[in-house]
């Protein structure tokens, strides 16, 4: 539906999510650090891993990729923790500083995203004016070359190739008929005459060759058309019985079938 999650709840028929939705492990970590006022230099790893677990459990459908992202972060945090417990050599960086930097960078990204959202809130109410010239209509003249990138080029190629395939469908291979309707009519006629009430559906379903089943079915319809046989079916999808009407089958009536 919306794999990239670009549309908002507004455009989606689903009810609002009760849990705060997190964009991922980094987002959840940032949220925990802020909401629980925990020191970024002393993040309780066990608690974070519990929270990650809770976030994964809250997902509607487990997604391996997303679960993997949380696992990578849990492993990374654990590694930082264990390294920070070891004595450090002189001049060696605090292993926690990379985490601090990442959280700060992500915080900046979120702040910028919030800023963009507030601009969008006002601007999405505006529509570009587009009126018709008085006399000559303005031809749709394509796009500014500067606005076209290789992604558009690739998309144009895909358009061309798809259209080409639509206009040049592969040839239909028609194999020669292996069963004749005429032969099957005679075969069915004999069976009906012999059994009086012949279960056509079971017979069709036990044919090893689908083409034979189809030919038999057509033969059954022919017998009904020639009023040689009646057809009964008590319920949809139930057995189809062919019974003789008493009218004999005359071979010359078969014509070209």
């Amino acid at each position, binding site marked *: 539906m919306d794999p990239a999650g670009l549309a908002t709840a507004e455009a989606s028929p689903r009810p609002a999510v009760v849990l705060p939705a997190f964009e991922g492990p980094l987002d959840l970590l940032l949220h925990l650090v802020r909401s629980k006022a925990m020191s970024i230099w002393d993040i309780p790893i066990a608690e974070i891993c519990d929270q990650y677990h809770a976030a994964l459990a809250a997902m509607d459908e487990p997604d391996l990729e997303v679960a993997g992202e949380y696992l990578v972060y849990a492993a990374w945090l654990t590694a930082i923790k264990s390294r920070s417990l070891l004595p450090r050599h002189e001049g060696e960086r605090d292993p926690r500083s990379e985490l601090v930097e990442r959280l700060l960078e992500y915080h900046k990204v979120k702040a910028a995203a919030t800023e963009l959202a507030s601009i969008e809130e006002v601007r999405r109410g505006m529509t570009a004016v587009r009126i018709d*010239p*008085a006399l000559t209509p303005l031809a749709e003249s394509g796009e500014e070359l500067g606005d076209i990138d290789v992604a558009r*080029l690739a998309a144009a*190629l895909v358009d061309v190739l798809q259209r080409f395939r639509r*206009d040049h469908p592969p040839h239909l291979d028609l194999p020669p008929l292996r069963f004749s309707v005429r032969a099957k009519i005679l075969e069915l006629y004999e069976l009906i005459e012999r059994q009086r009430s012949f279960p056509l559906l079971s017979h069709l379903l036990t044919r090893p060759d689908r083409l034979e089943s189809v030919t038999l079915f057509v033969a059954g319809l022919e017998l009904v058309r020639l009023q040689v046989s009646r057809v009964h079916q008590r319920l949809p999808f139930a057995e189809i019985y062919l019974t003789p009407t008493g009218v004999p089958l005359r071979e010359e009536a078969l014509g070209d079938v």
Partner: protein
Amino acid sequence: MSDVTHLEALCEAVLAVAGEPVAVEALVAVAGEGVTPALVAEALDRLAERCRAPGRGLVLERVAGGWRLATRPELEGAIRAFAGERARSRLSQAALETLAIVAYRQPVTLPEINFLRGVSSAAVVRTLLERRLVRVAGRKPVVGTPLLYRTTRAFLVHFGLDDLAGLPAPSEVGMEDAEEGVVGP
């Protein structure tokens, strides 16, 4: 702001994006509760009056089916100059498709391009040659020895590529790959 003033702004905005004549009833319907056709008519009168002021480039016209904003007829020359100018700096969908074929299938001939696109592309290829996005690169040694086309240095510069190997596969930019099963002529 008075009701009519607000209504005048509303009418101008709707007519400016409608792309077709708008009936008074349609304006009444979007104007909200308590707005009568008479009030809308008054607002349209004011809008028409204001458009007649010197320095305005738009006119409000009554046409079949309602009202529309259009450019002042005397300015048609400038509009046409603008349209022409813009067409020159733009690439049509046909040109984009042809450029894509040359880029991904080079060297390629005009008959091959025509075959893939299903329409004659001679004029489009000429435009691309003029825009210096494609160039002639010899002849194909087949019947008729048609010219072979390749993309230019300027093409690579425009798309920020070092070489043709940098062109992304459609799947790399999220397009389903349509390559399989398509053969040349």
